[in-house]
């Protein structure tokens, strides 16, 4: 997982409430055997004019010109600005996979659905909750300023605007530690590698038949 310290990135707006995980990544893509490569199908149903299927060449599909992410001014965005209850619906982890694969590092919204919120941290994405009025202001700023960028300083838990305004946000200390150090659940467990090895050494004495016999 990529460590997250400070990110200064272009902001793209997603101006609708209750964006569910099926909208983030439609169910036909769940049959995939992969966890990478979902980026081109992020928001598939609103992003393209035809119906997406796994295995299609997405570069040949007709784009919806009205969809924000298709506008050249938002190309390469790393911060998604969203509305309330983002990520509701099915618990599919494919949703954060798709957002991350697309290139997003952080999502700002007035609220998030629970499971989605948790799944973000596991996949190196930072979900940031800001008050409604601040989110409104940011939507205005993004609309009126081409190339609008925000700086997200996780260490100090601040979202900093180009004008120099700084908004504080909350994040669980443990999750923050994991993100800053690029630790997913596995990385975290591997911090206990010595304890695991010590356990194995002891168990190998006690129950040797459990070790080393499937080859």
């Amino acid at each position, binding site marked *: *997982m990529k460590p997250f310290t400070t990110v200064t990135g272009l902001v793209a707006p997603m101006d609708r409430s209750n964006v569910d995980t099926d909208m983030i990544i439609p169910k036909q893509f769940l*049959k995939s*055997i*992969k*966890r*990478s490569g979902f980026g081109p199908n992020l928001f598939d149903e609103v992003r393209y004019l035809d119906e997406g299927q796994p295995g299609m060449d997405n570069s040949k599909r007709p784009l919806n010109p009205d969809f924000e992410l298709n506008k050249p001014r938002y190309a390469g965005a790393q911060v998604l600005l969203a509305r309330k209850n983002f990520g509701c619906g099915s618990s599919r*982890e494919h949703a954060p996979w798709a957002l991350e694969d697309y290139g997003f590092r952080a999502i700002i919204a007035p609220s998030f659905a629970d499971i989605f919120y948790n799944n973000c941290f*596991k996949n190196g994405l930072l979900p940031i909750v800001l008050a409604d009025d601040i989110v409104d202001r940011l939507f205005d700023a993004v609309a009126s300023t081409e190339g609008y960028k925000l700086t997200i300083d996780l260490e100090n838990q601040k979202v900093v605007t180009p004008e120099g305004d700084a908004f504080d946000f909350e994040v669980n200390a443990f999750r923050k530690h994991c993100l800053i150090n690029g630790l*997913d*659940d*596995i990385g975290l*467990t*591997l911090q*206990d*590698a010595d*304890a*695991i090895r010590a*356990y*194995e050494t002891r*168990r190998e004495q*006690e*129950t*040797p*038949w*459990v*070790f*080393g*016999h*499937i*080859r």
Partner: protein
Amino acid sequence: MAGKTLYDKLWDAHKVSEREDGTALIYIDRHLLHEVTSPQAFEGLRLAGRKPWRLDTNLATPDHNVSTDLAERQAGVAGIRDEISRIQVTTLDDNCTAFGVREFSMNDINQGIVHVVGPEQGATLPGMTIVCGDSHTSTHGAMGSLAFGIGTSEVEHVLATQCLIQRKMKNMRIRVEGDLAPGITAKDVVLYIIGQIGTAGGTGYAIEFAGSALQSLSMEGRMTVCNMAIEAGARAGMVAVDETTIEYFKGRPFAPKGEMWDRAADYWRTLVSDEDATFDKEVVLQAADIEPQVSWGTSPEMVAGVSGKVPNPSNVADEDSRKGVVRALEYMGLQADQPIESIRLDRVFIGSCTNSRIEDLRAAAAVVKGHSVASSVKQAMVVPGSGLVKQQAEAEGLDAIFRAAGFQWREPGCSMCLAMNADKLGQGEHCASTSNRNFEGRQGFGGRTHLVSPAMAAAAAIKGHFVDIRTWQEGAA
């Protein structure tokens, strides 16, 4: 100090470290893999540049969507007709090769349903912690081990660290006391248990199945019971080790040998709940109350004895339950108060990780012998749980008995248990099935599943409707 339950012992023996939040890092001794839940876990490793922590602990085999049709199987992996299935099976092969994981590939004689293969090979042993990306991993608890299903991100976690972060479950014991009547099998016992405690009865618990009736069961029978612990809401079910357990593993390919065997067996004998251990919940049932079970609804708790009737919603007091019954009867196309024996079958499926072991096939063959499948039954199939079960059955001539009666004799796999391959029910069709789930659509869109034992399924195939296997045996004698 109070004694320990079997679950306490298994938990304590595998605890690597404890965390402040009450979770613990638990060491995993054996990890089974199949084609459906492993691809993203392997890819996760690859993306993070990680390697499996240990290789000698993993064993993989494709089972969920391999074809059970001989001709299609013989065409190899490239010949799998369904594209998604083919990609998943190929991906498992590729991942196992790339990472060095031992695999019994599709046409290997040792291939089969992962929960049949593990014990059969002695790859899963008493006292182990055993996980697999599949909820019926509880099967392996039958041998006195801690076995439970996990999700794909946990599969990756186990591959990378050989551990899982877990919270301890509560202890529950279900005792079935007394002797089982002739014709009553492990499947009837577990369906009866679920009918009594409900599908949420075991939620949050690790269940130990005990009592004289349980102990009288063979290892195969105990596996059938533990297999369905998950249908009772419990992630793990287990049976204490006794001489039946130890006898079963003697000479299995991956089981210890010689002096090591003796050491292992001594350790395994300690895997019982202490006399003074306390359980958070205890249920006692009488074996004498159990008759052959048939599920009539769309949840495994919707069962009745074969001599009984489909329930009448107007007799159900609780409003929610009544609605559930009404909906189930509608989906199943059954009438209130209809005798169970009057339910007619379109298809019969003998197989799945619940009932596809040699003992199951023997029981079914004994019923079928000398009879023919009823003309009203469109299809009756037997799908052995593994290549070795199939080989053994053929050596005993069971395949010939099934074929002579009009059954199809298939290649090993999950098959019609979950309808991920071509084996499925048509809309509205009734199936007597030895599998474990009768959810709506489980065996095919609109399909109607009745869970039963292998002997009951076999008899239903012959008669075209359910019959009481207890009278059958008398008649055949």
